[in-house]
């Protein structure tokens, strides 16, 4: 194990809002708005139409492409609309609206009892694909694809990413305390699919209770549970792999280049539920927190629940929100309204007050070098931001490793000049992509 990774920052983790609160099952939503695109890859096409009756767990949108993932009804009821609705990541997306009939009935033939040890790797991958499981840490990459690395990549290590390094978020933390058995089985299933013996669980050491709970749960499984120093972005895949295996994923490469596959806590729980019981991914644990929400909670939410109803389940807002974030405060997406819905990758809903946000007026870079010290990827964010400001996106890419940026936000966090470095970097990336597309 490596002692530390280069760079990083230490934001106040603000996890005490919800760290000691048990996961609470949210009241059934009055309706759900389920986008057909909740993953990276080909969007699904709806297989239901307005007026159809649907049951919980029924496939309502699908796509035959390999890099895609099914979408299921998360409640039972009537399809009220199939149209474009606001989407937390893509702005707008074709969505299926289901009005709740209050019965919460499962579709027939969904629930089963299975012994995972009797299934082979291909069968398990098939189940995961059918169940619509994607990376639930936020990236939403289809899990069955991640578990089917190309033949020439020899995978020897599995890592469960339980670092949860984003401030405010405690969903993974609570799941480790409350769903330990499902995590253990989920990890064992994944390791079987990958055919690996070496497994790690990496947890930041600001969650000592989760570390001991996991150590207890994984006893005798050969999986090592390791407490990692609390430093953002400890949960970034490349940093986590560096810490646990001392391997550096090469520039532009994926974890599998160094023989590693990483999964998130929520994802392995979903895998457990799908493989053992046939339950598709229709609900997830999400932390609703922030200085402007009345009663911060860890909620078990149905996919498609609107942010408004999720916040309502936490008593509404206590003061005027300045920002509503999907995900964590360092890498999440700011939202413009509360009609957007919880998709599979929503690890947190943050209702931040003006004081939480602490944004200041941007000024010129004073070259203090904090961003250079903070950058875990070894870039020069100061220079990238200045090039972005001047529209010199090609130079940023050619001379300053623009494309290596993982947009973790460490540089912006510590910047005394309050520069929007990540924004400039995203702009440069977009300009380069647009230019490449033109050719």
């Amino acid at each position, binding site marked *: 194990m490596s002692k530390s990774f280069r760079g990083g*920052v230490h*934001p106040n983790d603000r996890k005490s809002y919800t760290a000691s609160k048990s996961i609470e099952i949210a009241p059934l939503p009055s309706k759900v708005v389920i986008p057909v695109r909740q993953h990276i890859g080909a969007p699904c096409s709806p297989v239901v139409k307005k007026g159809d009756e649907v049951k919980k767990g029924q496939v309502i949108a699908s796509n035959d492409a390999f890099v895609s993932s099914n979408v299921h009804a998360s409640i039972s009821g009537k399809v009220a609309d199939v149209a474009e609705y606001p989407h937390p990541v893509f702005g707008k997306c074709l969505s299926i609206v289901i009005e709740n009939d209050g019965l919460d009935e499962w579709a027939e033939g969904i629930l089963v009892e299975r012994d995972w040890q009797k299934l082979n790797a291909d069968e398990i991958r098939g189940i995961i694909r059918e169940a619509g499981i994607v990376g639930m840490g936020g990236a939403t990459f289809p899990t069955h694809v991640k578990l089917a690395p190309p033949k020439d990549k020899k995978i020897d290590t599995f890592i469960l990413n339980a670092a949860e390094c984003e*401030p405010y978020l405690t969903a993974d933390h609570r799941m480790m305390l409350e769903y330990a058995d499902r995590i253990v089985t989920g990890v064992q299933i994944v390791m079987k699919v990958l055919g690996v013996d070496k497994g790690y669980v990496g947890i930041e050491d600001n969650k000592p209770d989760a570390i001991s709970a996991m150590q207890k749960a994984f006893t005798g499984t050969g999986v090592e549970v390791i407490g990692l120093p609390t430093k953002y972005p400890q949960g970034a895949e490349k940093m986590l792999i*560096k810490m646990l295996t001392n*391997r*550096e*994923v*090469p*520039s532009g*490469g994926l974890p599998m280049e160094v023989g590693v596959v990483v999964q998130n806590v929520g994802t392995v729980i979903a895998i457990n539920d799908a493989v053992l019981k046939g339950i598709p991914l229709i609900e997830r644990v999400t932390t609703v927190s922030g200085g402007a929400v009345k009663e911060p909670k860890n909620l078990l939410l149905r996919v498609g629940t609107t942010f*408004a*109803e999720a916040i*309502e389940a936490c008593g*509404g*807002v206590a003061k*005027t*929100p*300045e*920002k*509503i*974030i999907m995900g964590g*405060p*360092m890498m999440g997406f*700011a939202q*413009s*309204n*509360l009609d957007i819905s919880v998709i599979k990758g929503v690890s947190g809903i*943050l209702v*931040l007050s003006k004081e939480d*946000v*602490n944004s*200041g007026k941007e*000024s*010129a*870079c*004073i*070259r*203090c*070098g*904090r961003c*250079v010290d903070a*950058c875990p*990827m*070894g*870039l*020069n964010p100061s*220079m990238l931001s200045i090039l972005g400001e001047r529209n010199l996106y090609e130079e940023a890419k050619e001379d300053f490793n623009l494309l*290596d940026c993982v*947009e973790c936000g460490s540089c*912006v*966090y*510590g*910047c*005394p*000049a*309050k520069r*929007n470095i*990540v*924004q400039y970097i*995203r702009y440069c990336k977009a300009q380069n992509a647009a230019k490449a597309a033109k050719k």
Partner: protein
Amino acid sequence: MAEIKLNDNILTVSTSPHIRSEESISKIMWNVNAALAPAALFGIYNFGIHALIVIVVSIIAAVAGEYFVQKVRGKEITISDGSAFLTGLLLAMCLPPTLPPYMAAIGSFIAIIICKHSMGGLGWNIFNPAHIGRAAIMVSWPVAMTTWSRLTTSVDTVTSATPLNILKQQGYAKLVETFGGTPNLYKALFLGTRNGSIGETSTILLVLGGVYLIYKRYVNWQVPVLMILTVGVITWVFGPAGLFTGDPVFHMMAGGLIIGAFFMATDMVTIPITIKGQIIFAIGAGALTALIRLKGGYPEGVCYSILLMNAVSPLIDRVCPPIKFGARR
């Protein structure tokens, strides 16, 4: 279901991250000012009311200069961020206490208006403004800049020349004799009871301020340490009576080296951005200082050596980029 009231407030939508540290430019600048304060106060105590006047005039001129430029250019007034104040204070601390105050004011104007704002303002200047101001006064009024007050506060310092002046003109033996032995010489340099510029004399107070900045992580310790050590090593090796006969302890505490190494060679805006580059900068500035002291026409070379290294900082940045993740496996 009750509507969640947004109070007609429009939500802010921007790219991540959505939280930021408490750090700010004005916090950094005022902290540096505070770190300089003990040495500045000692200068006033040491040299009297005239030193106070030079400091006050220099600061007021720097702040007024910044206000003037920003007003004329229709830019936001940023005089409260402490950076113009810092330039004025630093400049005054590097001036002789007897300097006519109007010269200090002109130095401040040159530092702020020409060096800083003609380059685009805070963050864009290539050279350290306070040192540009000092260099400008030096070439304009060389006599006033090399006339030193007669100290009366201490029995050890009844001379009207700086220690480096005595060394340059009369040699090391005379220097030791003037102070009554090396222990007394070192003591005067350490405490600051010697002649020199207003704020440069007290090694102990400047180091305390510097250590505070290192503790606050505004300064990398390698920069002052390596610059001072480089001067020490070179002046020791190339001594007056052949190799390894120099007095490094004297050279490391004399002149403006301590204030320069802790407060000028660490000016974020004008030095390389990576630690590797800063190390090259520090060693280069130390070597140039020693070269000027030993071989140059001037008794002291801190100001020019730092300005020369400022000029090559962008080049150092070019050859010392950070090592990107994944490059070594």
